[in-house]
């Protein structure tokens, strides 16, 4: 018995010594948890920055935690418990979803270098900059120029009448004009969201932007968006499996030169190039509403990092975010996704990014439809609306009524 007790005491002593030693060694080091959603090349860019920061700042240790696909669900659980990571990426929702939990960054030295195209998207209603954007997300349509050429479409359509004419030619040539990955409700909502901008807010002839902003919009006018999408299906301009295909089908179709257009983000281009490096796919502007309207691009937030306002390591977190805002670091993250950087002091040399910047220069640029005109939480309504209308579960007018009731509920 004595031997057993002595052994237990010895083990306890050893553990205490190890623990004390460990604590003594790290007692002056502040550990920051940095949660990120991004994967692949963007994650690698963040990892390289963090490694360099940890070496340069021995008193602060930043630990990257990548939650991947479950990121948003995990972050919501953490928000419910009011126990967030010291720093985290906001993946397009800095203001709408995370704004109440983020520390205002207006006073940081780098804030004056933020480009106006992105500054407004990370600024809340009180004028606080709630996150450090690393790049500017530029979105339009994804277009396969080889399919256009093979179908006899001489130039990219700039408005919806031209777009429909192009679809007709592409269909007649035996190709699929538009690929919809209906298994993913976000993809369908993205299609409706882009066309909502064309039909409702970007036209000179028909413009309801102000009504949408001040809450006086007559939602029966939203029927036109639903009817337009359904007409694409009825005319045979979409893939047959538009309700059940997933995004891998879009990538494959574009890579194999079978599909002309996809209403998806620029990530699609990277995925297509993985399948076929020679595929002639690129971003094109979203067609305007009528023959008199010009096409446009969407600009928004993609990679942005915020600091949890109740973090116990707030000062250290601010040191890290200042480091992250250095032009070379901003450029590293932006280049990882082939997007323009968010700062005017980050010098771009990448030809792909320079080409996108060239496109922005000559284009009208607007924010995403839901982020600009719909109240927080309506992206999910848009997903329900668009999948229900596309699948025929709701009529176009029932769908518009759903949009109206949810808009009024969430707006108030």
């Amino acid at each position, binding site marked *: 018995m004595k031997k057993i007790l002595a052994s237990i005491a010895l083990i306890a002593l050893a553990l205490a010594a190890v623990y004390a030693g460990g604590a003594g060694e790290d007692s002056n080091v502040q550990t920051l948890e940095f949660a990120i959603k991004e994967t692949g090349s963007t994650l690698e860019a963040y990892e390289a920055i963090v490694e360099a920061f940890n070496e340069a700042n021995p008193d602060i240790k930043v630990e990257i935690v990548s939650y991947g696909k479950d990121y948003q669900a995990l972050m919501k659980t953490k928000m419910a418990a009011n126990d967030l990571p010291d720093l985290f990426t906001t993946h397009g929702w800095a203001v709408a979803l995370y704004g109440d939990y983020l520390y205002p960054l207006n006073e940081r030295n780098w804030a004056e270098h933020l480009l106006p195209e992105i500054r407004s998207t990370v600024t809340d209603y009180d004028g606080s900059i709630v996150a450090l954007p690393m790049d500017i997300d530029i979105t339009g349509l994804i277009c396969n120029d080889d399919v256009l050429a093979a179908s006899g479409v001489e130039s990219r359509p700039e408005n919806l009448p031209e777009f429909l004419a192009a679809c007709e030619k592409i269909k007649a040539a035996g190709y699929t004009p538009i690929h919809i990955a209906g298994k993913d409700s976000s993809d369908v909502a993205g299609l409706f969201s882009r066309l909502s901008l064309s039909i409702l807010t970007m036209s000179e002839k028909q413009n309801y932007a102000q009504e949408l902003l001040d809450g006086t919009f007559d939602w029966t006018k939203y029927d036109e968006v639903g009817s337009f999408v359904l007409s694409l299906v009825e005319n045979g301009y979409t893939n047959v*499996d538009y309700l059940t295909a*997933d995004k891998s089908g879009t990538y494959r179709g574009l890579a194999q030169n079978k599909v002309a257009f996809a209403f998806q983000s620029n990530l699609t281009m990277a995925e297509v190039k993985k399948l076929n490096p020679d595929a002639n796919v690129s971003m094109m502007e979203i067609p305007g509403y009528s023959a008199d309207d010009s096409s446009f691009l969407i600009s928004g937030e993609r990679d942005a990092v915020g600091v949890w306002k109740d973090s116990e390591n707030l000062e250290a977190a601010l040191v890290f975010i200042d480091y992250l805002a250095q032009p070379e670091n901003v450029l590293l993250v932006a280049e990882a996704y082939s997007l323009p950087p968010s700062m005017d002091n980050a010098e771009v040399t990448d030809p792909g990014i320079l080409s996108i910047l060239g496109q922005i220069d000559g284009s009208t640029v607007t924010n995403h439809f839901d982020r600009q005109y719909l109240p927080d939480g309506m992206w999910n309504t848009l997903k329900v609306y668009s999948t229900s209308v596309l699948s025929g579960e709701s009529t176009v007018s029932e769908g518009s009524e759903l949009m109206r009731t949810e808009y009024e509920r969430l707006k108030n």
Partner: protein
Amino acid sequence: MKRSRSLYMMSIPAVALITVFVFIPLVSGIRISLTDWNGFSQSWSYVGFKNYLNLFTDSRIVHAIKNTFYVGLGDTMLQNIFGLAYALLLNHSFRGRSVIRAIIYLPVMVSSLIMGYIWFFIVQYDNGALNDIIMLFGHDPVDWLGSGTRAVNFIMVITSMQFVGQAMVIYLAGLQGIPKEMYEAPMIDGAGTMQTFFRITLPMLRASILTNVILKLIGGLQMYDLVVALTNGGPGFSSHTISTMINYLYFDAQNAGYSAALGVFLFIIIMVSTITVNKIIGRDDK
């Protein structure tokens, strides 16, 4: 007295675990179901039984409840019929029996999520293996998952075939527990195979049937991962089950209160189904 006290002491870990992992979440879920909580906000209001009342007027939820029962009951029936058939066949000695048993049981070890993706690649319209075969014979490809009813049937059949091995193993154990002597007298009296099966084998398998029906019913009613991988609830909302709707309402629609009400409803369905099955099949066990 001392003995019963020590028995109570020994049950403390189990009671503690059940309290932490079952009882507290259940009470917490019921509480959330009475609120309008969005799932992440620090504030919410109590709305009484509004979420429960909405469940039965929301066509998407009613459809998900119908799908859940259809898959749950169909899956239970198919697995038990085929599981018992396999067990009866493989209870006889013949060359290669162990290999066949292993092959039938093998899919059980594959995650349902992986199984869903494998089947998606088989039945998808574009580049799907099934359509490739059909096209070889000169027919047009079919969007197999394009109809909600067909998609739900796919879900039911795929899950049944994946887990039939589990039912087979339970029935095999039951069959091997029936004493051989029980078959001797009827054989001497000239009873046929069907008579022996219905009069001796089936009644003696009552415990196995009860176990299988309850396990499969609960599994079917909780169907989640296969749906996510195969159809993601689509087309539209036509192949959602209660479990996938709970996830959708909580994380996508940001309506945690409504989602919790549906969760409590699922709990009640499973509890009532289990008690009913137990009473019907297990009534002579005492």
